[in-house]
């Protein structure tokens, strides 16, 4: 793909009265509150996600502190439950999803040669809802009776009959998070559909754009279902309905069906953009074109479609008819095929490439290996009879942390290192970045790998105490957890250092980087592609 930038040098005869805004950044707090600039909004999303990552991480530290030794040490069981619940909610809705949306905001317009997102004001609304939504969620922790304590999956009747008063606040904060996500997703779809520069055909789009395009459809399809299910929880708890109460003709299992109809596409919402990121980074540092571009697109679409047909694999132990469990088992295992295509393509891209191992590449490589481990444990969980053993144990915790931490989070970190020079105009500190990578890699495996073993041996999840035979492993896990938390402070150091200065980055930044975002200066000007480039 060759790119010709036809940005005319004489702007004045092309542009109308708002020309004076060109590259003139508004000043002060209003710049951030009132902005319509996709880069500002992307930055706010990313900073918000980082803050939430540390708040959610602090809660994980509380959990690991309590589980460091058997017996009750530091916190009450009810508070422990609140920590596991809010940790999950914050990491899913407050850290991973906003981080991906921030990357989408920053990069998609630049990657497709658009001047901004299609609906810039709505874009800002999507962002600013989030801090308020999480303020409500965090405030609910201080209510009498405590915050949400029913797990991030808020199964009925834990969230209805047995929940504290704060459930109403949880429900409404999820409602406005959902509004934010839906508006963000609509914006991504419309931008990609309608704002591509001339010549940027569908099959020339970078994979990060493709994967986000498909992710946005998943968001539009399932976030309203989440809104529906929290509404039912609200009416069941406060208005006497019995959606999830058998005495009134409902069924608690109905909750799980609706929740996981949202929930399974939701976990792919958190991994498909990661595939896009890795598909951008691997070719750059292997200095080869991505192997099997078209198959990557089709694999992403297949995974997205299959994600709607597998939700009940979370519910094998609820006593579904055998036919249903068989269907969901085979459908789930089918997902391994397109995912395998992706992993194969990444490896094939590196085959005989001229590889270098800068920090983004290191995180991307770790992603491939560790995400694959998470994928394999997912396959194990997909086997119905085996799942009867694994269900609700630390094996499940190990599985989804491998796909979400060493999968989604590692890809986000990789993306930040990869595009940071483009955002700030400075190279990050490579050796500090390597320190961050190796500390994270070692500690994250110390943290999550032994969870497989304690899980297989039967340690249940979401319980503040455990049998004595799990003590050694849990001590290791906790130490791994604290080290992983500390390692992320290096990340913050790198970010601040890079934002404040450093070696000036070139426009292309990386030797092997290709794509429109590398054609604009570093740091990227406040407004890019006001006149569309022509892609040949």
């Amino acid at each position: 793909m060759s790119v010709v930038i036809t940005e005319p040098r004489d702007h004045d005869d092309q542009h109308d009265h708002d020309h004076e805004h060109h590259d003139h950044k508004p000043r002060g707090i209003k710049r951030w509150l009132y902005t319509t600039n996709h880069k500002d909004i992307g930055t706010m999303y990313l900073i918000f996600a980082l803050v939430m990552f540390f708040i959610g991480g602090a809660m994980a530290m509380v959990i690991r502190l309590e589980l460091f030794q058997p017996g009750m040490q530091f916190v009450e069981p009810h508070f422990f439950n609140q920590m596991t619940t809010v940790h999950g909610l914050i990491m899913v809705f407050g850290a991973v999803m906003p981080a991906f949306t921030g990357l989408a905001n920053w990069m998609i317009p630049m990657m497709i040669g658009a001047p901004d997102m299609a609906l810039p004001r709505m874009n800002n609304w999507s962002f600013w809802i989030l801090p308020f939504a999480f303020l409500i969620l965090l405030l609910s922790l201080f209510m009498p009776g405590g915050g949400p304590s029913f797990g991030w999956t808020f199964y009925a009747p834990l969230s209805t009959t047995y929940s504290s008063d704060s459930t109403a606040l949880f429900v409404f904060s999820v409602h406005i998070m959902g509004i934010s996500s839906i508006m963000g997703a609509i914006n991504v779809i419309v931008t990609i559909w309608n704002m591509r520069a001339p010549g940027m055909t569908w099959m020339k789009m970078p994979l990060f754009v493709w994967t986000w395009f498909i992710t946005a459809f998943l968001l539009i399809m399932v976030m309203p279902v989440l809104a529906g299910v929290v509404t039912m929880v609200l009416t069941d708890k406060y208005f006497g309905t019995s959606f999830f109460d058998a005495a009134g003709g409902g069924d608690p299992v109905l909750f799980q069906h609706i929740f996981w109809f949202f929930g399974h596409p939701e976990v792919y919402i958190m991994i498909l953009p990661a595939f896009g990121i890795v598909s951008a980074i691997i070719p750059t540092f292997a200095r080869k074109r991505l192997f099997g571009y078209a198959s990557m697109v089709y694999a992403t679409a297949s995974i997205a479609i299959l994600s709607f047909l597998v939700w009940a694999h979370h519910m094998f132990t609820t006593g579904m008819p055998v036919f249903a469990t068989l269907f969901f088992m085979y459908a789930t295992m089918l997902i391994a095929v397109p995912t395998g295509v992706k992993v194969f393509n990444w490896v094939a891209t590196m085959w005989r490439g001229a590889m270098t191992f800068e920090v983004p590449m290191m995180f991307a490589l770790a992603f491939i290996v560790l995400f694959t481990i998470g994928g394999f444990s997912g396959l194990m969980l997909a086997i119905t009879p085996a799942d009867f053993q694994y269900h609700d144990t630390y094996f499940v915790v190990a599985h989804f942390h491998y796909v979400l931490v060493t999968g989604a989070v590692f890809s986000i970190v990789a993306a930040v290192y990869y595009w940071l020079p483009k955002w700030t105009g400075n190279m990050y500190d490579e050796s500090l970045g390597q320190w961050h990578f190796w500390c994270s890699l070692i500690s994250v495996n110390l943290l999550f790998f032994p969870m497989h073993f304690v899980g297989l041996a039967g340690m249940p999840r979401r319980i503040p105490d455990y049998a004595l035979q799990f003590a050694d492993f849990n001590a290791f896990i906790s130490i791994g957890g604290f080290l992983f938390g500390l390692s992320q402070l290096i990340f913050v150091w790198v970010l601040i250092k890079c934002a404040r200065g450093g070696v000036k980055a070139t426009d292309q930044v990386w030797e092997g980087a290709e794509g429109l975002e590398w054609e604009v200066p570093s740091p990227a000007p406040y407004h890019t592609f006001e006149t569309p480039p022509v892609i040949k």
Partner: protein
Amino acid sequence: MTTKTYEKYYVPAQSPWPFVGAVALFFIAFGAGHYVIDISKQQSGFGGYLLLLGLIILVFMLVGWFRNVIDESMSGLYSAQMDRSFRQGMSWFIVSEVMFFMAFFGALFYGRVIAMQWLGGASNNAMTFELLWPNFEPVWPLIKTPGGIETQAMPWTGLPLINTIILVISSFTLHFAHTGLEQQKRGQLKLMLVLTLLLGAIFLSLQVYEYIHAYRDLGLQLDSGFYGNTFFLLTGFHGVHVTLGAIILLFVFFRVLKGHFTPEKHFAFQAAAWYWHFVDVVWVCLFVIVYIL
């Protein structure tokens, strides 16, 4: 230069409205949460006031935001490409609304076809049935819950049928308003819009009447078991959407009176019409699934 053939995409300058909208949603969510808690505990609290404050800010925000957008539109800042963006945005918003209703239709399907049958002993649930509620009869409409709440079903004849006819006709009148707009027949446009709004208002009044009838005469209430739950939440959310659609149409009507919209450019009208047709389709599904079947 090739760039000449592409219209400039208008990226609006800074706007306070999105942030004001986020503040509004904060007060609405925080207020509504506390209001619900206050109601359930039958205590007086600040929740209701915060909710009201949030709604006022929301209205303020909508007025300000739409005023900006209408001004920009009338001064010709919007290109055909932006019109496409708006249309696509609205279409996908409607898709998300469809999915919201799907959650409740899905619940209704599951409750009726699976949960109720299992409570009645179907599949391998004979012991569940024997041990829990051996007197339970799994018939739909579920007029007697396993727990013993009794109610009556809402017949589809009478009011619901009339309401269906009214809403379907209103979709046609709105379509004729649209053709009036496209053929520059402003008289037809205004008349048909007024008719649509009237039909919408009649529909909503009859819905209110039906609710009163359900509560007073049939003993059919929100908390009378799964039948009442799905009946009121589905028709209730539909009613909220009709109200919203009618308010949007009302503002479109005011803009028509001011001479806005041309046969080529009338996104606001188009969006309002799509929304109205969407609530109409939802009603037809509702009528068939909730009332008749």
